[in-house]
């Protein structure tokens, strides 16, 4: 196992800048998730770590040693691909052992390690089959196994769950977490799925347009998003976000949004008269009287997801989503009072959190 450090990684494809100045440090044994929308450069970054693509600038270090000049096979990393990329002409056992065979490991120990990995993943009875005869979930395990057998310094996982159907995915996610706890390996995991990122990662790296927007523990990313992109990208339903102005009236801080005003008393911010964005998560809004700030919203539509309900309402000239308990009974057109705790409000100035 090893720690991984990226220093100022930059990559261009023609005129398109895929990555610009990416810095990252992943501790030994950490589960690091690269999260971002498609095209954000996360897969390119993974390929650069593997050595499949060469960066234009910057450096990749394993345990503090640069591996930039090493070919993929000499970096001692293992990768699990989104498409699994199993060798269709080899049996599962040969797939698992291929990396060891290429490294000249004696046959006997290949067999032992293949068996060990297969036992860990529960695929011993598949060893004599070919990838074409396996189900999606089984292939996924074989792909994982192929990486594990090698005992590499770093695991690189490129959206390994995205080809599984939704029900299977939740199960495999849990197993993956347990597996990591068992083998304590350094993992770099690429995904566009925030649930995977939040549940799996010790460290989540949010990326967009080839840049890192925030690095942090999942709770931090959720509770204290660094900017409006992270704020809206993480969380479902999306955070409510309003552009407006901070005003001080009667020595009390106000946010003047589009057609409504929000009382922010108690907050210490020195940005009066400036244009800001205010974000409120749907679950941070209370329904009914009794809180600090009271707003009136008009119910437009209710979506019921079973365990809870989401109320889509008009607030001033904007819209608003509120999480409500499943027992809540509202009608479209109804006016409801809402309360918001100023300390649960996220305020962004020029896109950055303050």
């Amino acid at each position, binding site marked *: 196992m090893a720690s991984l450090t990226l220093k100022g990684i930059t990559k261009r494809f023609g005129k398109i800048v895929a990555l610009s100045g990416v810095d990252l440090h992943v501790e030994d044994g950490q589960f690091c998730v690269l999260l971002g929308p498609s095209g954000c450069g996360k897969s390119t970054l993974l*390929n650069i770590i*593997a*050595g*499949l693509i060469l960066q234009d600038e910057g450096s990749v270090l394993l345990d503090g040693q640069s591996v930039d000049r090493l*070919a*993929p*096979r000499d*970096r001692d*990393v*293992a*990768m699990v*691909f*989104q*498409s*699994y*990329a*199993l*060798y*269709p*002409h080899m049996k599962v056992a040969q797939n698992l052992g*291929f*990396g060891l065979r*290429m*490294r000249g490991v004696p046959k006997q120990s290949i067999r032992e390690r293949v068996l060990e990995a297969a036992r860990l993943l529960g695929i011993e009875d598949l060893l004599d089959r070919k*990838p*074409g*005869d396996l*189900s*999606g979930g089984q*292939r996924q395990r074989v792909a994982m196994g*192929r990486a594990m057998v*090698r005992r590499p310094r770093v695991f690189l996982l490129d959206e390994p769950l995205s*080809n599984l159907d939704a029900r299977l995915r939740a199960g495999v996610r849990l197993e993956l977490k347990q597996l990591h706890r068992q083998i304590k390996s350094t993992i770099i995991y690429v995904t566009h799925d925030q649930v995977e990122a939040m549940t799996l990662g010790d460290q989540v790296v949010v990326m967009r347009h080839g840049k890192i927007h925030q690095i942090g523990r999942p709770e931090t990313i959720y509770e204290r998003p660094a900017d409006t992109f992270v704020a809206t990208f993480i969380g479902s339903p999306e955070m409510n976000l309003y552009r407006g102005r901070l005003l001080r009236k009667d020595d009390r801080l106000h946010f003047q949004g589009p057609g409504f005003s929000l009382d922010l008393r108690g907050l210490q911010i020195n940005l009066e008269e400036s244009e800001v964005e205010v974000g409120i998560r749907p679950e941070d809004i209370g329904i009914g009287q009794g809180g600090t700030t009271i707003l009136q919203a008009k119910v437009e539509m209710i979506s019921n997801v079973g365990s809870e309900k989401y109320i889509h309402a008009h607030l001033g000239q904007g819209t608003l989503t509120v999480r409500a308990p499943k027992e809540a009974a509202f009608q479209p057109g109804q006016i409801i009072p809402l309360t918001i705790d100023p300390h649960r409000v996220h305020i962004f100035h020029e896109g950055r959190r303050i």
Partner: protein
Amino acid sequence: MSREYFEQTIIRILRVVGLIFFIIIVAFPFYWMIVSSFKSLGEILLRPANLGLDIRKIDFHAYYAVLFEHGFLQYISNSVYVSILTVVLSVTLATVGGYAVTRLRFRGRKIMSYSILLIYMFPAIVLVIPLYVMFSRMGLRDSINLLILVYLAQTLPVALYMLKSYFQTLPPEMEHAGLIDGCSRLGVIWRIVIPLSAPALASVALYTFMIAWNEFLFAFMFLDTPEKFTLSRGVVQLAQSVHLSKQLVMAASVTVTIPILVLFLFFERCLVRGLTAGAMKG
């Protein structure tokens, strides 16, 4: 009677008539080639309109004469040698070349791909005279190994292009996995690309074999010594030397035709199966 039904009936009739027409025009020459090769010269001269073959009068003499008196045993072995060597060289070079054009980044890759196609279109007749002059001058012309190099040049562009197109359909992740697992680029070609491309390699090999086996112009122009003749060259030689004994020419034609047809009909089925199916995403 509805229009749909009426037209369906017409189509059915046209289909039967058409199939019979095509079967006759395609099969008859081959039928005639075989039937005539078993006739005696007297039979051919006396009853040229006899479509059938009298089982009791089957005459193998033409084959005996062609194989043992006209040197066709030698021509067969020459043709086998030329064709197999052409296939081996052409498929090998096309595999590595096709891989380079598909997967490796280098300047001029695009131009390379297009010039391959351009060369494919070059007419043999434009090449044959200068090559004839050049190799006559060097005294190398009457050589079966030179012929192999000529066939290599004739087949390589197409073979490379065909394999390039196939390699492009292979998922690059599989090769990435190989690189990470410890293969060099050549190792990736040998252990991953070639096994995955078996159907494409087989069809390219078959195509190359066909070109080399059937080739007439260069063999006709280059080879002077009968011991070096390929089958096609030998058939022409035979046809020029015997005027009336059509049964000999037909027996020679059967000898050159049967191997390639059998090979094609036998392998046609094996070629359809794609190997990658099912190995990728579920």
